């Protein structure tokens, strides 16, 4: 955050890479998502839960009250998409935050201390890593029940792994560097070294991993909702809307098209942004 106080010319040098079309597209999508999430009640033309059986399955009509049409119980599709952004964003942010914190903490400790600590943590990682992606999440949601918290837990259950691997590798490389050794010899405790010297150096890579993790979280949440294993179906989510639409696909195409497009565009934006960040901040990182 120190960069905010820098002069504008140096800021342009540092952040100019964010002005490429790719990055701009990604930023626009992400900001749109955040705005929708924060201001959903103001933006949505209708209450997303408000049903009107008399106005069920109205086709999209530009200029009409229901721009993107209505669903099978007469709820406004646009409003539900806007509120759906909120859930997607909330889940993605929570998953990225929790799994990031957990993964980085574990990885840094593992890499910094090495030895026994490292091998125990790596064994632990191996068990979770042994599950193909999504399988563990399916198992957790299926067995622990539906709920926002459980979905977040389920998705975070494996997303911490890339952070852990990345930060372990970086911590291993950093622990023998001069400034770390110097800090230790000046009597700094382990915690202090980790916090002040190791962590700040890992942040750029974490940001890159986090961006891609967000994309994964959004698509996984949608997939779980689609399988009927997501958040309770009364909460509007894009994946859940798609699952609903499956029964109406040949009669009301808009119910399937728009939520799918929302997921697609969001992922596209995040992936593009992630790509730009990766190229700039840490070209070493590939899909972890």
């Amino acid at each position, binding site marked *: 955050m120190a960069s905010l106080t820098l002069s504008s010319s140096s800021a342009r040098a540092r952040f100019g890479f964010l002005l490429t079309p790719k990055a701009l597209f990604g930023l626009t999508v992400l900001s749109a998502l955040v705005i929708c999430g924060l201001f959903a009640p103001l933006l949505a033309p209708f209450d997303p839960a408000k049903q009107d059986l008399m106005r069920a399955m109205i086709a999209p009509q530009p200029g009409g009250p229901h721009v993107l049409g209505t669903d099978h119980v007469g709820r406004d599709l646009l409003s539900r998409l806007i509120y759906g952004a909120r859930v997607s964003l909330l889940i993605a942010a929570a998953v990225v935050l929790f799994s990031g914190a957990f993964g980085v903490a574990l990885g840094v400790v593992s890499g910094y201390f090495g030895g026994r600590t490292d091998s125990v943590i790596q064994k632990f990682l191996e068990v979770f890593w042994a599950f193909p992606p999504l399988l563990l999440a399916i198992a957790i949601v299926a067995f622990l029940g539906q709920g926002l918290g459980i979905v977040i837990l389920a998705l975070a259950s494996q997303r911490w792994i890339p952070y852990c691997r990345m930060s372990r590798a970086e911590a291993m490389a950093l622990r023998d560097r001069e400034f770390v050794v110097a800090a230790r010899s000046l009597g700094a405790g382990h915690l202090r070294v980790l916090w002040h010297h190791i962590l700040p150096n890992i942040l750029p890579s974490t940001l890159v991993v986090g961006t891609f993790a967000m994309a994964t979280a959004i698509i996984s949440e949608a997939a779980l909702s689609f399988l*009927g294993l997501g958040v309770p179906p009364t909460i509007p989510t894009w994946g859940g809307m798609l699952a609903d639409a499956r029964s109406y696909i040949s009669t009301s195409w808009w119910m399937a098209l728009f939520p799918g497009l929302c997921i697609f565009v969001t992922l596209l934006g995040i992936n593009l942004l992630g790509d730009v960040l990766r190229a700039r901040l840490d070209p070493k990182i590939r899909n972890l």
Partner: protein
Amino acid sequence: MTMMAGFHGLMAAALMTGASSAALLAQDMTDKRISVAITETIAGYNPYGDAVVLVGSIWCQVYGCLMRYDFDTGRPIPYLAESVEPETDLTWIVKLRPDWTRHNGEPVLAEDVVHSIDRVKNDPASAQGFIVQPIQSIEVVDDLTLRITTDEPIATLRDNLTLIHITSKKQFDELGEQSYREPVGAGPYRLADLSIGSHMVLERIDDHPMISPTNPKQIVFRIMAEPEARVTALANGEVQIAQGIPPQLVDRVEQLPNAYAAFANSVEMMFLAMNPSTAPWDVPEARQAVAHAINREAIVRVLLGGRATLLDGPVGPGQFGYDAAFRTPYDYDPVKARALLESKGLLGVEVEFFTPVGRYTLDRQIAEAMVPMLEEAGFKVQLQTPEWASLWSNVQAGGVPFYYMGRGQMLDPSRALRQYFETDGSPRLDYSNPELDALLRAERGEFDTEKRYDLMRQAIAEVTQDAPAAFLWLHQMAWGVADGVDYTPRQADRVDGWDIHIR
């Protein structure tokens, strides 16, 4: 032996169906194959191990059952049995047909029936123990005659006997469980192939008495869970009969150039159950308010495309105990519903409302549509949509106070009413009404159909009035059928080969 059996079979066919003599020539029989897209899964080879009604009906076509339903009259009629008649209040005499044989030419014997009932009861894999629950003992009188003793008078025993597959004792003694893999049945079809969870193939027994020349030579039952996939498959000619066409797709089927939609009332009552041992459902007015609050007409019209029959009690047309003149006292009246709640100071009472998802036609969508209606009446509703496994286990254990549910297999509602509404019938509703108990007990012990009908009507009126459940509707089940195939879907979810005719 086989030749003889075949000859007898043909004679019987000619006599029974009055088929023309041309039917006697195998070459005139159709060699068409019919594929049927079904929604449920197939559990395996053990005919006693499947709790799915449709799969049970498939095994009945292979092994044969003692009785079967005549859907035109709504009564069970003899199938492998020649007759099933009450001897005393507690005993029944079953006579087997002397002239029908298994596919290998061996006769169906009394010991097979004893063996089969034993399997239903004692096979650890059996999912059907309830069918034989009232049967206390069964004894062989002679090779073709049995005596069944029940522990209380059960007028509906014949109904139970439509569900028991008669397997061969000899086969089982020789091969054990392995005998299920190559069933030697006595039904009009033989099992040609089975792939667990995927498909099942039947092949016609040409000389079986129940077969007519227009019945398909092969029937392939294919599991297709997705409704869209079933309709698409019907459109491409991949399947000729498609089960479970949801209301929103009926129009699409009707517009297909190569198929049509056919309808059958289900015998599955859809209802809202309210457990009277939990608050606020211990207050009759709260239950009545629910019954008044639901705008059933609107739900049926919009969500179900009109494809449902509103219920005035637990049964509808074609089910035993139905009285066309009987009307439920609970019409749609939101004002009255609110007044009822208000009279007991329950306005704004919080209730949790549970619904299955994807179990019944548009279940969640329907429940969602009910929420604003209940709220208008003054309830504060929290809609819960647990996964089926947890909901169903919990309902059976009596842990769910208020839920949307269906109860199938109600051609004769006797067992279902006992299960849900009789004291100690099951924990799922925890409802107790001595008057109703007495009526239900009397009803199932009454062998005179007219008198029994009268008792059943009274029981139905009583349970409707007291409203431990709000009875909603019977779904009208839509089936897609290809042109060139004559098939009238039946009330229960079953597809019998002898009901399908190739034009």
